[in-house]
């Protein structure tokens, strides 16, 4: 589209999409550093740059991409890798189920699009937006998702190309970007809770920490995340008055 044609479209037409891109920015440091780290890990796991690119394009899930590398190195069979990926990403079912009711007014095609690019990060930003504005816009969501998706792919590939120049990316503290983001998202979602409910929500946070601690003795962390979330959400329903 040339600039002349663009002028005739009201600016509000583009606004939600651009705002989505803007709202993605705080998550990018996390994405980029994890993606970059994945590129490095991929190369050291003997993957080609093509493998790295295709994994990030078609799987687009940080945790499982790392686990795939780890399992490839140990020579695990195809079936074991696919099953593990399924379990690691089962958590998305909860995120998707939580987010989906807010998009039912949009077409099936668009909803499939929301689902395909759903991540922990985009879920977090969307829930935060929902708490502030009461509803979610399709173009905003696409702006957020597509920005995150493209940056993830770029970061993975760049990590594969330049990774060997950086010996220890953890030393920079970049791996903490995601934790800091989830901490901020947790704080922001607690701040939207009515005062009378705050004690209840804080008790759920405490139950989560305890449940995670207990479960981590018995199951891998991705299973613990899934189980603890389901258990404590149930406690939440039972104990909420």
């Amino acid at each position, binding site marked *: 589209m040339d600039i002349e044609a663009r002028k005739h479209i009201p600016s509000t037409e583009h606004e939600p999409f651009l705002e989505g891109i803007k709202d993605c920015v705080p998550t990018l440091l996390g994405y980029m550093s994890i993606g970059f780290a994945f590129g490095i890990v991929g190369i050291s796991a003997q993957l080609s740059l*093509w493998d790295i690119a295709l*994994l990030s394009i078609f799987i687009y899930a940080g945790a499982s991409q790392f686990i795939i590398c780890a399992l490839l190195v140990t020579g695990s069979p195809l079936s074991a890798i696919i099953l593990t990926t399924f379990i690691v990403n089962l958590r998305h079912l909860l995120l998707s189920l*939580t*987010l989906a009711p807010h998009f039912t007014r949009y077409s099936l095609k668009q909803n499939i699009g929301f689902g395909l690019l759903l991540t922990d990060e985009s879920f977090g930003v969307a829930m935060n937006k929902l708490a502030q504005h009461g509803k979610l816009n399709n173009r905003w969501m696409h702006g957020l998702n597509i920005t995150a998706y493209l940056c993830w792919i770029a970061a993975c590939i760049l990590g594969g190309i330049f990774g060997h120049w950086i010996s220890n990316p953890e030393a920079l503290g970049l791996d*903490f970007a995601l934790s800091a983001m989830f901490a901020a998202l947790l*704080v922001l979602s607690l701040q939207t809770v009515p005062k009378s409910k705050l004690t209840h929500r804080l008790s*759920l946070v405490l139950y989560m920490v305890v449940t995670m601690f207990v479960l981590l003795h018995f199951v891998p962390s991705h299973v613990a995340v899934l189980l603890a979330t389901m258990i404590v959400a149930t406690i939440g329903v039972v104990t*909420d008055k």
Partner: protein
Amino acid sequence: MISSFMMWLILGCMIVTVIPRVVPFIFVRSIELPEVVLKWLSFIPICIFTALIAEHLFIHTTTGVTIHWMYLAVLVPTVVIAVWTKSLSLTVLVGVLLMGTARWFF
């Protein structure tokens, strides 16, 4: 370019990743979720954010699971910054700087 093993791997992993992501978006359109399920879902954000943090707060050692003290030491001021600034970007920036500094010293 790419081995057939990798091709099957990527295809298989893609299918099992797409299903949990997309299926709820398809079927929630045609059915009304019961009140109790919606309530359950309303607790998912808080639970999952805590889980994704707690996942790194604890580490496996030969004797069991213990607290990752440095992570906790960086997490606490990061949470304070989040409460204070209410900003995602600032929290992430300060958090990374704190972790970088902590690793520099220890």
